[in-house]
Structure formats: C-alpha cells, structure tokens
C-alpha cells in the first residue's frame, strides 16, 4: 500500500494545480468490503470534485484524503507502468491512474476491485494467484529483441534494458470468463509469458514450457473471448499469444517435448507495427 498523500496534489499531469480543484462533480459508486471485519460488501457513493485531466485514481485518493481514510486503494507509479492500480471501472478492467473521469460520461461511475482474485479489502486484491501462474511458466522479465538501434540510454547506462511488456496488473485474469469458473486455468498472463519463452527462448527450456501449455488447463481451456487482449493496458495480446501457442503445439506434435530449444520462431523487430503500438523503447 502506498500513497498516503496528506493533501498533496496527486497527479503530475496538471502541474502546480490540484486536478481535483473544483470545476465539476463526478459521482463514484465504490465497492467497499473488509473481509473478516465487515459483515457484507456494500457500495458507497461519493461526490468528487473533478476537473479536466482528473483520473479515477485522483478521485479515489481524494475520497481517501477528504471523506474516508479507510478506503483501501493500491497504486504506485501513476503512469501505467507498475500495474498496481488495476480495478473494474464502469464494468471494464482498467488502470485507474490512466482512466480519465472525462472519458466515463456524466453518469454514476461504478468502481470495483478486480474480479477472480482474492479480495484483501475494498479495491485491493491479492495478486499471488496471478504471480503463481507467471512463476509456473518461468516468465521472462528482460527481452533481447526490440531494442531499437537509435535508442539513447540514460547517462551512466552502457546499454538500454528492454523489459517484457507485461506489467503483471492482473486485468486479463479479471476480464477472462474462463478464469471466472476455473481456478486451475493457467490463464492469459501466464500463457502470454509462456509464448514469449517460445518466441524468444533466451536459453529457457521451450519443450517444458510447451508441455505446460499443452494441457487441459493450458491453451486448450481458452474459449477465445479475447477479453484479455482488450483489457491489457500494455499491448501484450494474451489471446493472440495463446492462439500462437496452440499453433506451435499442434505443429510440434510428435517431436520431443521435454528438451530445451534454442531457436524460436523469431522475435519481433523494433520497428514492427506491434512494437510501435507498445509505446516502449
């Protein structure tokens, strides 16, 4: 938990002005529940002053400062990199730090915690089931492809490090209708990480990863709703990754599946269309 702001401005997008200084009012209907403390979940409605540029996270932090210090909200970076402020906003999974009140219309905005994950309290969920899935496939963190030759590393850094796109926010797990009913499903984030290990092995045991994915609770459990890809704030395209994994598994049937493979189907290049849409170097 972070960000006990003590009344300080909470957004860096509107310099020197608190973005919640009065100009309009947004009505937020916020899910409240403290498991083990309060009897039943409930929704509380708050009227929040909201000016142009204010985000849902700005509004929630205003509620915590001005109305209810007990509201549990998790955040860190405020610019869609840390993945900690994922929640369901107006029925859709989103990062609260980059979801603008202006984009949500004039009506009441329902804010709920991510679905399909254990609730810690209010808008905070336990991410461990998501991390467990990523650990299971030995998800890579640093990618070797897509470092543009023209990228200029910061002073004192010899060469840039390109991290994988997934920010481990869990939006895909919340959006997936299959995770909703099958707790053993490896899930979109885990399978997308598995595909990255196949696409760009970096010395990992691709055969082992494919064997994990080739399972009733792996790629074959997906029912192609594509909601994970739609929800992903980082253009990871989990559904597309699952489909590519299926193809790799089907084409690889009959081949040894437990040995390491050193060659993948080839990484994306830094000037690919897919790379440009990630907005990352």
């Amino acid at each position, binding site marked *: 938990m972070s960000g006990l702001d003590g009344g300080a401005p909470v957004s860096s997008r509107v310099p020197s002005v608190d973005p919640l200084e009065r100009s309009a009012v947004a009505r937020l209907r916020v899910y409240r529940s403290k498991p083990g403390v309060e009897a039943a979940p409930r929704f509380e409605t708050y009227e929040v002053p909201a000016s142009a540029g204010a985000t849902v996270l700005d509004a929630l932090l205003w509620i915590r400062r001005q109305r209810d210090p007990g509201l549990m909200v998790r955040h860190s970076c405020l610019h869609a990199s840390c993945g900690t402020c994922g929640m369901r906003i107006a029925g859709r999974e989103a990062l609260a730090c980059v979801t603008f009140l202006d984009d949500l219309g004039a009506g009441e905005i329902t804010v709920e915690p991510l679905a399909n994950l254990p609730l810690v309290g209010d808008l905070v969920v336990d991410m461990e089931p998501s991390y467990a899935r990523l650990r299971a496939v030995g998800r890579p963190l640093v990618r070797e492809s897509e470092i543009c030759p023209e990228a200029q590393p910061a002073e004192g850094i010899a060469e840039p490090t390109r991290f994988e796109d997934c920010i481990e926010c869990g939006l895909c797990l919340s959006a997936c209708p299959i*995770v909703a009913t099958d707790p053993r499903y490896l899930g979109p984030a885990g399978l997308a990480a598995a595909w990255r290990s196949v696409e760009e092995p970096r010395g990992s045991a691709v055969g082992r990863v494919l064997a994990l994915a080739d399972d009733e609770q792996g790629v074959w459990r997906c029912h*192609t709703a*594509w909601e994970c890809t739609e929800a992903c704030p980082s253009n990871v395209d989990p559904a597309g990754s699952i489909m590519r994994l299926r193809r790799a598994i089907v084409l690889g049937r009959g081949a040894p599946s437990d040995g390491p493979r050193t060659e993948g189907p080839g990484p994306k290049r830094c000037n690919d269309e897919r790379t440009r849409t990630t907005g990352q170097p």
Partner: protein
Amino acid sequence: MSERERLANRDAAPSRPLDRRRGVAGWVDPRGRRLGGWAFILNRVTGIGIVVYLYLHLAVLSLLARGPEAWDAFIAVALSPLFLFFDVVLLAGLLIHGLNGIRVTLTGFGLVLDAQKALFVALMVLAAIVLLVGAIRLVEVA
C-alpha cells in the same frame, strides 16, 4: 511433486478465499463486453441451445416408433406459426454457432488473428442474410 502436480495444486489452498470469482455470471455478464466477449457469449448460449435441441429432436423422432398417427399429429403442430418461429430461432443458433466456429477454428490454429474481429462481423452478416432467406423459405413451405 512434479511440475504438473504443483500447477494442479497451485490454488488448492489459497491464502484467502476466492470470494471475487465471478462464476458462471462471468460467462454471460454483458457489462463491458467487447466484440470477442459477445462472440463468446453467443457461442455459449447457442451451443447450449443446440445441445438441448438435439435431445428434443431425438425425442420427436421417437414418435416414428408410435405409428403414422403420432407422427402426423406432430407435423400438424410443427406447421403452426409458433413452431415455425422456433424453427427460425434454431436456424439462427445453428448459423451463429457454425459460422463463428469457423472463426474459432481458424484463430485456434494461429490464423487470421489480426482480422478476427472483421471476420466475426463478416460471418455474422452472412448469418443474417442466410437467416433471412431461410426464414422466408420456411414461411413459404409452411
């Protein structure tokens, strides 16, 4: 414990109850669904409907074993406007499920991934056209 066993047990004893799992409501909750989500909902609903129809169909066919009178009585009911409406609903379900199945199969082989939305729209337009023609034919035959 093998890797597969660890995977199977990874949620067997969660540190907290999975009290926010959406359950079957997560299949059909229309809030916030995008095109692929609607395709998924349609496929589920039509799939369940077709399975139900299959058993009804077998039950109806069993009338043949009861002689011509039983069958003729059923045919008289089958030509009623209400029954014809259900025929059109059945045709719609078969078209949606079957044509979307082509899309699901293609994407399942890693094909047309970037065009899966356009493919769904095109197939549903085709379904609507065939449904219209089929509905007119059904009424004409009746």
